[in-house]
């Protein structure tokens, strides 16, 4: 069993990753696909005249300010990308089935009652951000779908305790899903070759890291890579044997990752 997190970032269409996924499945491997929707949400938000807003956390993470209106757009954008990935896989002969974390209570998340945001040096408390962390995955549902010959394609939002949709980080949702499914490997694709010692110099790719080195390696990670390194740690802690941070831009991105190209964490 392999879990593949497809990047939602700009310019990376799902075609290359889907071709590899199709090959893996036709070779008998079981795959669960997870994706986000950050780029798609921004373009849809612009189209709807509701420009996206972002929050920077005190430790420097940037994420979407998901109030009720932004959540509606976020949900639509994720579903639209989900439908596109499902169709791409189906056209490659994979019996793909899309689900959001809300469906069947797949990803049950805990909403943070308040988040801190830094804006021009001023830190404030924000209470209407619909963000959270996935706490539980319905692995039985995924096994039932895999048993029915389906390839699950999963996306945010997750569902909170009040049955409300929550924006969750897709990399970390992929990590907890990989753990819950006892996946052997989690591949996280993005638009860089892996964790770079000196971003953006791609020659400084770190080929492998042990779990113990991970916490210090986070300092090297820039922008969205930070959360991917954290997600990798969470996956390893949840029992996944290997996590590979790999490059989504090249041909055969997943086959390369499984062959060890990128940053391998084990």
């Amino acid at each position, binding site marked *: 069993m392999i879990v593949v997190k497809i990047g939602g970032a700009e310019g990376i269409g799902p075609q290359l990753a889907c071709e590899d996924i199709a090959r893996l499945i036709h070779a008998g491997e079981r795959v669960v696909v997870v994706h986000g929707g950050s780029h798609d949400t921004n373009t849809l938000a612009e189209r709807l005249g509701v420009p996206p807003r972002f929050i920077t*956390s005190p430790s420097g993470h940037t*994420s979407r300010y998901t109030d009720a209106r932004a959540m509606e757009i976020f949900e639509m954008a994720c579903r639209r990308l989900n439908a596109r990935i499902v169709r791409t896989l189906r056209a490659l002969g994979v019996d793909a089935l899309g689900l959001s974390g809300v469906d069947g209570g797949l990803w049950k998340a805990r909403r943070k009652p308040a988040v801190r945001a830094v804006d021009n040096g001023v830190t404030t408390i*924000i209470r209407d951000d619909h*963000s*959270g962390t996935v706490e539980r995955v319905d692995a039985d549902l995924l096994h039932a779908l895999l048993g029915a010959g389906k390839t699950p394609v999963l996306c945010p939002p997750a569902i909170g305790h009040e049955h409300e949709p929550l924006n*969750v980080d897709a990399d970390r949702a992929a990590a907890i899903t990989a753990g819950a499914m006892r996946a052997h490997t989690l591949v996280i694709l993005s638009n860089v070759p892996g964790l770079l010692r000196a971003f953006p110099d791609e020659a400084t790719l770190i080929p492998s890291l042990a779990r113990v080195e991970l916490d210090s390696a986070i300092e090297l990670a820039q922008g969205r890579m930070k959360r991917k390194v954290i997600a990798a740690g969470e996956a390893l802690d949840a029992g996944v044997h290997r996590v590979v941070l790999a490059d989504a831009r090249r041909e055969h991105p997943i086959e390369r990752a499984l062959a060890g190209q990128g940053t391998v964490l084990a």
Partner: protein
Amino acid sequence: MSQTATTTETLTATCPECGATITFSRPPRRHEIVRCPDCGAELEVTALSPITLALAPEVEEDWGE
């Protein structure tokens, strides 16, 4: 929650934890986080006129998509 009079020159409020008077160099934003210079408690500006302070909620780092 502690309240205080907003004098024209300086903006002050009382720390709900230790009672010290906190002076603001500029009008704070609603929900802004300030640290009490005396006891170091993290406080949230819950109202502006008058400036009202409360202990800031503990919040663990997290992010969405």
